[in-house]
């Protein structure tokens, strides 16, 4: 019996040995964690404020709540907004709800319409203020104070930047598929405050925002002439730039916003150039046969990623900012398009195209670890949230018009950013200053 057991033991050890020689590797692709229980409370900051301030604070608390709820990372309990409430009262209420943290938001309108908001994250048990900031936002942008507060809470509880005080530039189509009326529209990350910025006479495409949201660029076709439009949103100045007799497309700002990558099509060949906004100089970066396009920078500006069909089908390539050291990044069946580098620099999102359609994918920045997200329509043109945790993309259902969708990186949580008209080709800004 003992011999039998020892033989069995030896057999197990011998069988297991080749396996245990391999280092164990666990890929964590998704995870669940218990949501952090947080209470949200707000009050007007002084008795002299207009009655509307309390209402405004309540509205803004709703914005904070909606922002944080969209991450599924929090179990949120919202307190009523009481004009004369105190922090002690709210802390007591938060403790009775067993919340771990309290978001304390105070807002006051000044006579010039500016809103001064203070946002604090307080540990409920110790009562210590762990993070706090004051935001002053001008009239018409009061919601931004709430987005900034949500970003503060997100950053404090996750140790990573948020993505709430950001904007999209996208194409809204107010016509029909056969008679489009396309406009470049800039909206807040939650779909509020749409502002159309392009000339209705122009057919527009491929809008992009600079990282700080201060500038927008897009391609416009008017009377069969094609040009790049660069729109300085601070000064309100618009510049129309023609590409030396060629057709410009696919603009993308450099991280510092001082130059743009641009595709120039001339005589059947498309190459990538850098356009310097201050000098107006075009610097050629690629010179290959075929279409090199959809170029954009890595977050630190040290590499450029682009798509090229130089090898047949469209694949992803990277190069130095001066165009040297071009390396192919994607291989395999299907084609890869519209690459975009994560703000964290660790992954690249792209459109993966096969004969059966288009879907969103990501890969590590060395080209490994490709992961495709489930698609329910034609999914394309991904753009990263500043946090690097979400992607926005265009989804065109089999019947219906294109809409903007937002997904996590595994495709488990996807939601539509509701728009009354067709929306596509979004570019997501970084956190606004």
């Amino acid at each position: 019996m003992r011999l039998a057991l020892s033989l069995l033991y030896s057999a197990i050890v011998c069988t297991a040995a080749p396996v245990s020689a391999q280092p164990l590797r666990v890929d964590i692709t998704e995870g669940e964690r218990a949501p952090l229980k947080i209470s949200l409370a707000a009050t007007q900051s002084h008795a002299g404020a207009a009655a509307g301030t309390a209402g405004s604070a309540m509205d803004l608390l709703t914005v904070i709540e909606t922002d944080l709820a969209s991450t599924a990372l929090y179990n949120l309990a919202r307190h009523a907004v009481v004009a004369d409430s105190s922090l002690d009262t709210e802390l007591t209420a938060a403790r009775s709800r067993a919340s771990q943290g309290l978001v304390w938001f105070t807002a006051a309108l000044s006579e010039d319409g500016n809103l001064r908001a203070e946002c604090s994250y307080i540990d409920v048990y110790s009562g210590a203020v762990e993070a706090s900031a004051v935001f002053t936002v001008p009239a018409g942008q009061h919601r931004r104070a709430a987005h900034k507060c949500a970003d503060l809470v997100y950053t404090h509880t996750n140790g990573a930047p948020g993505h709430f005080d950001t904007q999209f530039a996208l194409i809204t189509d107010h016509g029909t598929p056969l008679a489009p009326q396309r406009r470049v529209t800039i909206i807040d990350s939650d779909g509020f405050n749409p502002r159309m910025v392009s000339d209705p006479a122009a057919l527009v495409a491929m809008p992009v925002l600079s990282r700080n949201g201060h500038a927008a660029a897009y391609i416009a076709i008017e009377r069969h002439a094609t040009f790049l439009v660069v729109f300085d949103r601070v000064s309100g100045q618009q510049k129309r730039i023609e590409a030396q007799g060629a057709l410009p497309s696919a603009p993308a700002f450099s991280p510092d916003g001082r130059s743009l990558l641009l595709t120039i099509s001339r005589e059947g060949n498309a190459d990538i150039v850098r356009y310097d906004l201050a000098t107006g100089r075009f610097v050629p970066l690629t010179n290959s046969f075929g279409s090199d396009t959809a170029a954009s920078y890595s977050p630190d500006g040290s590499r450029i990623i682009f798509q090229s069909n130089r090898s047949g089908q469209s694949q992803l390539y990277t190069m130095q900012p001066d165009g040297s050291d071009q390396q192919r990044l994607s291989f395999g069946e299907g084609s890869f398009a519209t690459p975009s580098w994560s703000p964290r620099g660790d992954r690249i999102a792209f459109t993966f195209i096969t004969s059966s359609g288009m879907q969103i994918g990501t890969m590590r920045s060395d080209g490994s670890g490709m992961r495709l997200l489930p698609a329910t329509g034609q999914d394309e043109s991904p753009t990263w949230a500043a946090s690097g945790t979400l992607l926005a993309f265009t989804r065109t259902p089999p019947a219906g018009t294109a809409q903007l969708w937002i997904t996590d990186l595994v495709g488990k949580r996807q939601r539509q950013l509701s728009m009354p008209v067709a929306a596509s080709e979004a570019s997501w800004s970084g956190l606004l200053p």
Partner: protein
Amino acid sequence: MISPVHQPFRTAVTRRKPRRGLIYATCALPLGLAACQVPGEGLKPPPTFPRSLPAEAELAPFQAPGETLASQTDSLADFLQYAGSDTVTFEPRSADLNQAARDVLARQASWLAARPTVPVVIEGHSDERVSVPEAFTLSEQRANAVRRFLTANGIDSARIRLAAFGRLLPRSATRSEAGWQENRRARTLPILEPVQENRP
């Protein structure tokens, strides 16, 4: 057999379409006159007719507001009739001209060669099965393929301007191979000056 076009372009613009003439003729008949003019109503303004012919719904180019093309109708119709089509189509992801396209473009070149002062825009288009940026570069390649054919057939390249529309202006909204094939196209558009009222 297509006869060469010798008529100068200006004549072509101002020439009245036979259909319009037919309607005038109908009104000029005694019976038709009664229909055009009811006694006691005073003199009616001259009859107006829709400027567009049925075929023009397809013919209508992308037209930005302010761009007047209505008065070019007759000659665009001429061009269409002569060349057989203003549009050639392509295979998926390709800018190669097939034989059918070459036949149409040869007739377009012949029509354009007879009007050496008429500038030409070539519009390139893509279906929605390629990415947005590649659709743009591909549609430029298609427009450029047409330009190369026309210049090889005697059309001065200085007359030709390209416009690449990518996926922006589909001709068919049908999401099937039939619809996509219609959208993978290049279109030749003679830009004809509007008729001047006071032209001597």
